[in-house]
């Protein structure tokens, strides 16, 4: 069976690969959406923190002999703590100002982080072994799927859905959402809103760190890995609708698949297709696919 001259099995494997890449988009855009939804900050340093997650994992394994699984927990925690420091010392002063200030600050942090890592480690990247338990590949009949890539999809879906569940379905999530609507009122009920906001930012960037560790065995761990990705991720958030949690997850996965298909039919266009989708979506639905018009 063939579709547009491409064998069906080949198409299926491209869809699966698109899903793997889409799960990175989903995880990163989810973090951005959480931060934007609750803090109203456009976190441009997200890509740099993703890179930092990968580098921390590499450092932990290289300098301290820790294993991948330890770093999968530890690196996002460290990135989260770093995020909390940023929020406490810098970002919190900008909430009342225009979005642009937050964007500029976080963009500055990106340049700083990338510059630091570049001057210490160069851009060629660090070798990062796939953990022993996930080495090898499984023959699915229509393609050979490396076990590690399957793990990436599972891990990111679990994390994404858990995040969605906490924010949309639990009491804690309700506090968070209420806190962003009317912080004064929620504080009057005895909820510590500033602390909640700080922890939310920490959690959002920890997601980026987690994605970084997941990506480390697949792509080259280099200071530039974040900036190669972040623009696409922003486009994903815009397409999904700023601040929509489920929207960003679904859009991330969907765009991964669209991009994967483009790589088959018109490879030269594959790094542009996301932006074409963005233009079309913005023309038809200015608030994004899942966003609510305000």
């Amino acid at each position, binding site marked *: 069976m063939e579709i547009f001259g491409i064998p069906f099995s*080949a198409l299926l494997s491209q869809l699966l690969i698109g899903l793997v890449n889409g799960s990175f988009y989903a995880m990163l855009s989810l973090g951005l959406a959480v931060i934007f939804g609750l803090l109203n900050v456009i976190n441009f340093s997200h890509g740099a923190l993703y890179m930092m997650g990968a580098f921390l994992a590499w450092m932990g394994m290289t300098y301290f002999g820790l294993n991948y699984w330890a770093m999968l927990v530890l690196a996002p925690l460290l990135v989260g703590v770093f995020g909390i420091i940023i929020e406490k010392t810098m970002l919190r002063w900008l909430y009342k100002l225009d979005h642009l200030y937050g964007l500029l600050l976080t963009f500055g942090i990106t340049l700083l982080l990338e510059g630091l890592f570049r001057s210490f480690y160069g851009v060629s*990247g660090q*070798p990062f072994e796939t953990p022993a338990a996930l080495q090898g590949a499984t023959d699915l009949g229509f393609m050979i799927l*490396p076990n590690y*890539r399957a793990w990436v999809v599972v891990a990111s879906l679990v994390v994404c859905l858990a995040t969605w569940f906490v924010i949309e379905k639990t009491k804690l999530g309700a506090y968070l959402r209420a806190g962003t609507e009317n912080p004064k009122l929620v504080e009057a009920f005895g909820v510590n809103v500033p602390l909640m906001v700080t922890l939310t930012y920490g959690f959002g960037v920890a997601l980026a760190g987690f994605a970084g560790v997941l990506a480390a065995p*697949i792509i080259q761990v280099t200071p530039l890995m974040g900036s190669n990705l972040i623009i696409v991720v922003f486009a994903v958030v815009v397409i999904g609708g700023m601040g929509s949690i489920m929207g960003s997850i679904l859009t991330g996965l969907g765009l991964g698949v669209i991009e994967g298909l483009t790589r088959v039919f018109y490879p*030269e266009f594959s790094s542009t297709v996301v932006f074409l989708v963005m233009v079309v979506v913005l023309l038809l639905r200015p608030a994004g696919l899942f966003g609510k018009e305000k």
Partner: protein
Amino acid sequence: MKLNTIATATAFAVAAFGASCANAQVSGDSIKIGFITDMSGLYSDIDGLGGAEAIKMAIADAGVVIAGKKVEFISADHQNKADIAASKAREWFDQQGVDLLIGGTNSGANLAMAKVAAEKKKVFIAIGAGTNRLTNEECSPYTVHYAYDTVALARGTGGAIAKQGGKNWYFLTADYAFGQSLEKDTADVVKAAGGKVMGSVKHPLAASDFSSFLLQAQSSGAQILGLANAGGDAINSIKAANEFGITKKMKLAGLLIFINDIHSLGLGTTAGMYLTDGWYWDLNADTRAWSKRYFEKMKKEPSMLQAGDYSATATYLKAVKAVGSDDADKVMAQLKKTPINDMFTKNGVIRADGRMVHDMYLMEVKKQSESKYPWDYYKLVATIPGDQAYLTKAETQCKLWK
């Protein structure tokens, strides 16, 4: 007060102008060398700051004062954008009085800079660019192409693999000037050896994931996967090819692999790979001696490009010294008639089309067990004599060499 400032400025200008009149042989107040390369992007490790350091070493070795004038050095980052490279080059020639422009990585940027240099009649030496259009269709009397080109890479790696029976090729190509040149030149070599090109896929520069492209390559049924890309793109292609088990069925041919890439990937994933290099730090006593000095500064072994940066600068300054002037036409004439003998090349010759012809080396990446000390990565398979590595007089389209 204001009048005073203007007066001082005028006096300064007169003094400066007077000085340059007195020494009409050397333009401006100094011999100025400009270096435009990728300082921050995916090609910054193979050239970048290390290249700038190598040029500074060459200036220090030549003596900072030549023909009574100080040698100055400026550098800039073109961020892999041809328009930035061209406008920076124009600004430097017009306002800074740059006499020699050295083009670092990125073929697109170098083609743009070569045009500006030709228009301004200034010496331009391309080091990091691969495209042979610089000395072929778009050759110029002011361009020298120094370290390597896509033809040499194709004839080195492509020729060696085709000779060993690797006849069916598929290309994974970076979608810009360099990748396209490299694919075309290698395809020509493969076809000439009786081989076949089963197809190719063009990926955007700095693509985020290569697995889709690699699956397409795999389903083509070709034996050899030619990687017509470089830097981070080549590294990520090789990583993904290993992960997806493609290396079990197809042999990878890295058409432009730098030592930095091998260092980053490790010998585990690269052992046995063939590659063509224009220079290797561990080739002989001269290369080792220079590399030792470089290593002390940069804590890394130099790539072919960084060594080329040094050698080109030293060669240029020697020519300036010999003719006692930095006049572009005089220096170019001197460059083209003087063989180059240094740690980079023995009897290197700059031809009429601007190609610096020197031996190229076919290398094989060592196994972990064969590597005895840090950065001990290659064993020499064959030396490709310069006159076989590059485009010949019969093949060239360059009008300057007919």
